[in-house]
């Protein structure tokens, strides 16, 4: 028996969400009394692979010959490596969302997504987010093996140094998709993984005013996001749209500037740990959900905030 964990990298380095998934897998392995095997399907150096050992992996299997977007092949190889695994852990990335359901069918294993807690016991029972974060569901696996996909940034990193054995192999089969290339998003930090997200809404009046939002994000090392109407009218790219029908945000700090706080917006962002609202309207619904608020004009408050944070950072 073991816990298998799927890893993802970007530009040759593992994502933070991967270290989180390994930490989660390792805590799960303690509950089940077993060890963690990590799987990497990308071209990752040995120096990077051993980092998985710092979070509790005792073995890493590296098979860089599979395109992870080819869920047909990726799920096949993972299924082959899962014979011994009772729990298979993923972080809920877009790619994982293609692989986990296929794997579920292949292994006749329950697939539980949006996971936010460890299992209560060796019988897998877990808390997950549902109703677009308006509710938490407790759900039980009915199957021998269980696939868990955790909600990024909801668990955190736990160091747990292990001697980590690296095993490399190949897999030649290919699915029927042809990959024509990738384009990198303009934002430097991805919203799903960011610890801090700076988000702005229609209160900013126009796309030309986003300079200060980007600067604030820059000084905080944050990702930028926006409300739905802002991306609908084309002030910002769709990839920045957050909320119930956009990307979910689970940051440590979410700063909402000129965003009213409509229920659909809050539904996607309110699992952030701390929320700040900056709005001219004292009645803005966002203040009911926020931890900290400033009633004021973004065009005055945000430049001051940038200055204060710069001062603080020095």
């Amino acid at each position: 028996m073991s816990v298998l964990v799927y890893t993802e990298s970007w530009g040759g380095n593992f994502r933070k969400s991967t270290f989180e998934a390994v930490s989660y897998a390792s805590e799960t392995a303690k509950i089940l009394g077993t060890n963690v095997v990590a799987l990497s399907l990308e071209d990752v150096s040995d120096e990077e692979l051993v980092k998985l050992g710092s979070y509790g992996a005792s073995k890493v299997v590296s098979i860089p010959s599979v395109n992870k977007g080819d869920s047909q092949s990726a799920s096949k190889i993972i299924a082959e490596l899962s014979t011994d695994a009772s729990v298979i852990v993923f972080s809920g990335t877009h790619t994982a969302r293609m692989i986990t359901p296929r794997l579920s069918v292949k292994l006749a294993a329950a697939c539980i997504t949006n996971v936010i807690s460890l299992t209560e016991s060796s019988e897998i029972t877990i808390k997950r987010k549902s109703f677009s974060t308006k509710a938490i569901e407790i759900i039980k696996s009915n199957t021998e093996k269980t696939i868990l996909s955790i909600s990024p940034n909801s668990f955190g990193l736990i160091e747990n140094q292990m001697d980590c054995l690296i095993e490399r192999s190949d897999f030649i089969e290919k699915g029927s998709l042809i990959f024509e290339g990738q384009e990198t998003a303009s934002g430097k930090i991805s919203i799903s993984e960011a610890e801090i997200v700076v988000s702005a809404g229609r209160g900013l009046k126009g796309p030309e005013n986003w300079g200060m939002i980007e600067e604030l994000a820059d000084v905080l090392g944050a990702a930028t996001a926006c409300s739905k109407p802002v991306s609908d009218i084309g002030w910002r790219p769709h990839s920045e749209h957050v909320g119930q029908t956009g990307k979910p945000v689970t940051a440590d700090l979410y700063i909402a500037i000129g965003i009213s706080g409509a229920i659909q917006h809050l539904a996607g962002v309110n699992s952030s740990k701390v929320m700040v609202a900056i709005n001219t309207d004292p009645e803005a619904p966002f203040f009911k959900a926020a931890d900290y608020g400033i009633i004021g004009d973004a065009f005055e408050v945000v430049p001051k905030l940038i200055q204060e944070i710069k001062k603080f950072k020095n």
Partner: protein
Amino acid sequence: MNILVCISSVPDTTSKINFTENNTKFDCSGIQFVINPYDEFGLTKSIMIKESIGGKVTVITVGDASVEPVIRKALAIGADDAVRVNMDPNDSFSVANEISEYIKQNSFDLIITGRESIDYNGGAVSGMISEMTNLPLVNACIGLEIEGNSAKLVREIDGGKEMITSPLPMVIGGQKGLVLENELRIPNMRGIMQARTKPLSVVEPTGNIMYTTSVSFAKPEEKAGCKFVDASNVSDLVDLLHNEAKVI
């Protein structure tokens, strides 16, 4: 092009969520149900494809009779016919299994689902269908063009986007980008009249094998309340975020 659009009937996005029977059942009273917002993009796209190259759009929903108004709305928007699988949708696997059985008995060039349902948020049905029917899958799809027997697709990845070509038939999990927000179709009077007479067939479930059991629900903890900082003392906010909230 024979297109199947999978539609989930979900509580309207403004709904307050409550539970009954000891927090084990979703409380439907006073709730307005709508087409899952992600599914609307796929529905509109499939109607556009039909209009440009011909074909037929079928919608399928797994649910009891209470989902029929939502199905009728999809017909009013422009789907040609509809299927309801008469089963309570309690688990992604059982839903995908029923839809896959229908796909195996009928033939489709394209199967479109939403990226995820806004109630269950499983994000799993599309992937399960693709595995059960052994078809290629592109999820979080933000671009789709049909070229003969293949599809040119764009999918969102964490950190950017990826361009893909796939043979048909295939399964897509769609979202905004498949069509734009302002291209979404709203039912007009003529559509609503026509929808009343379009075929809606009800089929009985084949299995209902569930891989998970929902135990109970809870509401997230309420926030303690908002602490206000004066707009002239922005440095206080930095202080609070550092010393009290410990997030910077």
